[in-house]
Structures are given as C-alpha cells and as structure tokens.
C-alpha cells in the first residue's frame, strides 16, 4: 500500500513536485502519467527514499519514507528506464549481489532467481552470461528481476519500457499484470498512454508537479471519450 499526502519537492528555485496526494491499494496498478519533466521521476524517487521530500509525507508498505528509509527499501523495488546493472557481472552474480541485501542466500536465493526468471521469461542459461553480452531487452529484464527478487510489497516502474523492443515490452506489460495479481502494489509511470491503458487500474495525471486528475481507468476513458490520450490532453489543457 502507498499513501502520499501533499508530497512536495523543491530545489533551489524550482518546485518539482508541488503537493500531490494519492493512495494505491494492494493488487492495484496505479498509472502516474505525465509529460517529460512533470515530476513523475521525482515523485517515485521520493517514494523510493532516494530523494528527501521538502514537504508533505508518504508511506510505503506502512513505513514513512523519511523516518524509516531502510524499512521502506526492504519492502520496495524500483525500476526506471535509465537504470542499469553491473555489466561486467553475470546475470546470476547481479541477482546474488542484490539478493544478499535482503538475506537471500543459498537455496532460497536460487529459488527466488528461478521464480523471477520464470515470471520474466528469462532462460536460465542466460544468467551465466555477463550482462554486457546480453541484449538491451534482456538487460532490462535483469534490472527488473533485481527489483522483484525480494518479492517487494510495492513496485515502482518509471518509464520501464524505454528502449525495449516489442517482445521485451510485451513481456514487461504481461509481467506488470501478473505481479499485481500476486496482491502487490504497483505504480506505473509513463508518458505512453497505450501502455497505461493496458495495465493500469487507476491513473493520475501529473503536470508541473501537480496532480491534475485522479480516477479509475474507466473514469479517465470516459473523460477522453474512450481515449486515455485525449483525456490526458484535455485535462492538461484545462489545468494550464
């Protein structure tokens, strides 16, 4: 579960996030949609405790992002489009490295790696290759596998399909629905409306650091006469 209340982030002269609030329930995929520079990545980084909010509050899996950052990180996985893993390590070594931070060792680690590999359609033999020898899509799957290895309650995906080919993108979208089906809480941040339409249960439109719309996917589609993209553009134009 995620609870965000009046969350703000300011840099010296810029207010990147100007007080947004939303909740995401377990088993739900929440689409955080907005143009580039709207504040999506900053919001997710605050939820992942990578950035400190300058106002408001947020709880992830019941833990406060400012006061309990380590507990938050233990219950959260994050993937963004620019995120990479160590290219000189093999896929297995990468997962071993990150798994060890969540007390995953030996048979338990192997079991989790097998689980993640199956969920993401990663051939076990690929894991023995160094990451730099893998395709971009496979590298992104390793990035995601790293984020879900500890089966976090909350998964944040930020432009996670950037740079992926059609097959890898398809596998990722399927995975999002599957992971939500396990009762997990997901935030899916993107500017690609078709993806959001496919995987999200509820959506929030963010622009200039403000949430200008929040509702179910159905409500958003109605607002755009059956098109999420139209709803998005209308709402942002109204807010401007």
């Amino acid at each position, binding site marked *: 579960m995620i609870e965000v209340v009046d969350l703000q982030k300011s*840099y010296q002269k810029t207010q990147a996030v100007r007080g947004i609030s939303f909740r995401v329930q377990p088993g739900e995929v929440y689409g955080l949609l907005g143009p580039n520079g709207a504040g999506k990545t900053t919001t997710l*980084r605050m939820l*992942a*405790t*990578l*950035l*400190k909010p300058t106002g408001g509050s947020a709880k992830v899996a019941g833990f406060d992002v400012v006061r309990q950052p*380590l*507990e938050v*990180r*233990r219950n*959260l*996985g*994050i993937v*963004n489009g*620019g*995120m*990479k*893993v*160590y*290219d*000189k*390590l093999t896929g297995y*070594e990468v997962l071993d*490295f*990150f798994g*060890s*931070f*969540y007390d995953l060792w030996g048979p338990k680690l192997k079991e989790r790696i097998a689980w993640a590999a199956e969920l993401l359609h990663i051939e076990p033999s690929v894991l023995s290759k*160094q990451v730099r020898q893998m395709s971009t899509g496979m590298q992104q799957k390793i*990035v995601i596998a*790293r*984020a879900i290895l500890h089966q976090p309650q909350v998964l944040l995906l930020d432009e996670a399909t950037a740079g992926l080919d059609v097959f890898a993108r398809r596998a990722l979208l399927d995975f999002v629905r599957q992971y939500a089906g396990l009762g997990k809480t997901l935030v899916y941040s993107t500017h690609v409306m078709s993806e959001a339409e496919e995987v999200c249960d509820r959506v929030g439109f963010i622009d200039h650091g403000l949430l200008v719309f929040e509702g179910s996917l159905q409500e958003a589609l109605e607002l755009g006469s059956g098109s999420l993209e139209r709803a998005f553009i209308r709402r942002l134009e109204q807010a401007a």
Partner: protein
Amino acid sequence: MNEILIIARKELLSVVRERRVLFNTLVLPILIMPLLMFGPILLFGNAARQTQESVQKVGVVGVPAAVLEELRKARLEPVQIADPQTAVQNREVQAALVFENGRYTLYGRLSRGTASQSALVVGKVQAALRAYKDRVVAEQLRARGIGPDILEPFSIETKDASSAQEQAAGVFAFLIPFFLVMFIQSGGMPVALDATAGEKEKGTLEALLAAPVPLSQILLGKGLAVFVMSMLSTIASLVGLLLSGGVVRNFLAGRLQTLQSIQGGGGEVQLGGGLALDPLGYLSILLTAVLFALLIIAVLISLGLYARTFKEAQSYTGLLSLFTIIPILFLQFSDFLKLQDWFFALPIVNVVLAMDVIVRGAATATQLLTTWAATLAYAGLAVYLAYRSFQREDVVFRN
C-alpha cells in the same frame, strides 16, 4: 559489516573481469619498475661504455703532434678542421680541440650536461690531455732531479658514512617514496572512479542506493575495494623496485661503475634501489602508506562522486596527481632543507618526507607521530566529506 564486504567483493569482481585494469594495476608496476628505475641509466651506461671503447672523430686546429698521438692512444681520431664551433654544431665531429697561444680550448655540445655523446667525447679528450700534461710535468721534474711524487704529497680517499639504510636505498632513496605515493594513488584510481563516477554514468548507482543498505556502508564497501587494489598495486610496485634493485646490484654493477667513472663521481656511489630496514622501519612504512591510502581513497571517492562522468572525474584526479608530485620533486633537495617538525603536519608533504626519513633510517618519533596523527586527521576529514557528498542529492544525481 556484511554489506561492506558484499559491496567490496562486487567492486573487486568487476575489476577482475576488466583484464586491462588488472594488468595496469598489478602486473605493469612489476614490469615497469626496472625500466623506470634503471632503464635510462643502464642505457646511458651502455652508450657511455661504447663511446669509451670505440673511436670518435675529434676536430683539431693547431694541435701539436705529440698531443695528436695522445688522442689516438685514447681511441680518438684527430681530423683537421677550419671552424671548430661550426664543425661541432653540425655534428661533423663530437668535439674539437684548438691550441692557440699556449692554451687549449675544447668545444663540445654541452647544453644537455653529461647525457650526450659529445660530452662523453669531451671527457675522453680531457682525460687524454690530463694524461699528456701529467707525463710532460713528470718528465720536466725528472729532468730537474725531482720525483713525480712531489705532485701528490698526500692521497685523498672518500668514504660513504651514510647509514646502512641510506646505502641500501642509495641514490634512488627519493624514488622509493615517490613510487609508493604514486602507486597508492594510481592503483586505487580506476576502482575509485569506476565505483563512483562510473556507476553514475552507467546508471547503476541508483539501483544500489535503492537497496536497504545505509550510505555509510556503501561508501565503506567501495572504499575497502579501492584500498585493496591500491595496496596490491603498491606491493606490486615495491616487488618490482626491490627485484630491479637486486638485479642491478648483483648483475649490472660493472656497467654502472663505467658510468660513474666517466661522470667522475667521487668515492663509492651506492646505486641502491633496495630497502634495509628493521621490522619497525617496515611497519612504519606500512602504517604511513596505509594512512596515506585512506586519505587518497577518500579524496578520490569524493571527486568521483562529484563528477558527472568518468572523464570528468579523471580530469579532477589529474590535478590531484599534481598535488602529490610537487612535494616529491622537492624531496630531491630535502638534504638542503633543515627539516622542521611542523613540516610533518603538512598534508601529502608529510607522507613523502616521512617515507624518505624512514627509508634513510633517520626518522624521529616526533616526525613519525606527527605524520601519522596529521594524516589520520586529514583522512578522517576526507572520509567525512566523502560521506557528506554521498548524502547530497545534487551530487549523487548530478548526471
């Protein structure tokens, strides 16, 4: 603690997979040390010996026949020339000798000191003239019934009174601190930059920061990996240094003696390149090196974190190298300085000076304790600054 080791292991694993870095850090110092230390001197010694043994042309103007004969005996070939200055400048001859109004004038290309073939040939001509002069003086004294011993009423012998440690380190004493400092820095640099700026540039740092590991442990893990590589590189350079010193002392001493005799060095010059310290001396060197490594590693990590890219980080560390090289250059002249205890509180300078006095067996307790305390304080400050940098969002997400 566990997380620190896990992170350090990962960093080292990445290095092991990068054969180029591994070679440059661990193998190259062993191979390059003999070349750096003794290559130029051996090469020059060899060239000097060849110059001694072979025959070179010497331009002559108005030189008497007896002197010409003396030159030939010294394996020189006198050739008559018109303009000695031009002939030497144009390299028609390596040296030229002019006799005019009872005075010999010797021409050579001497702007590069003794490190030129012309200077060596000038040395040969001078030696031939000295031999001729001594013979003429001896003959004239004998004609007057005086023995040549009158010219040498006493003999002069120079003895090296430096300590056993100084003799072992020899004329290369200052190179030992130089290489220790340089290899501590250069050994840790690739790992430090890859673990910081490299991670930012490649987009791997964010995934690590999102793991449930305190920043302090991430920093210490990376620092530990840099420390290991730094120390391994230093050990490799020391092995190279000691091996090359041993090889030269045992197998190439003769060649170097030729060079010393040509250069006119007085007494027994210790080539050195070795260490002859008691266990406490070795421990002192080790402790100084470890503390210096802590300081340099913290500075490297701070710079690496601040930089947006690996290249930007390299430009910062280039400047850092200058800060370490300058004190080492001055170390060559440390014998002319009256060492004050407060010198040993100056950052980097103190490490270089401390290593120098340890290698020479001349360290005092005050000097060493001041160096260690000051370096530990500087290292602590640098670690704190690195940690603060790591906490700053504008630094970590600066790319």
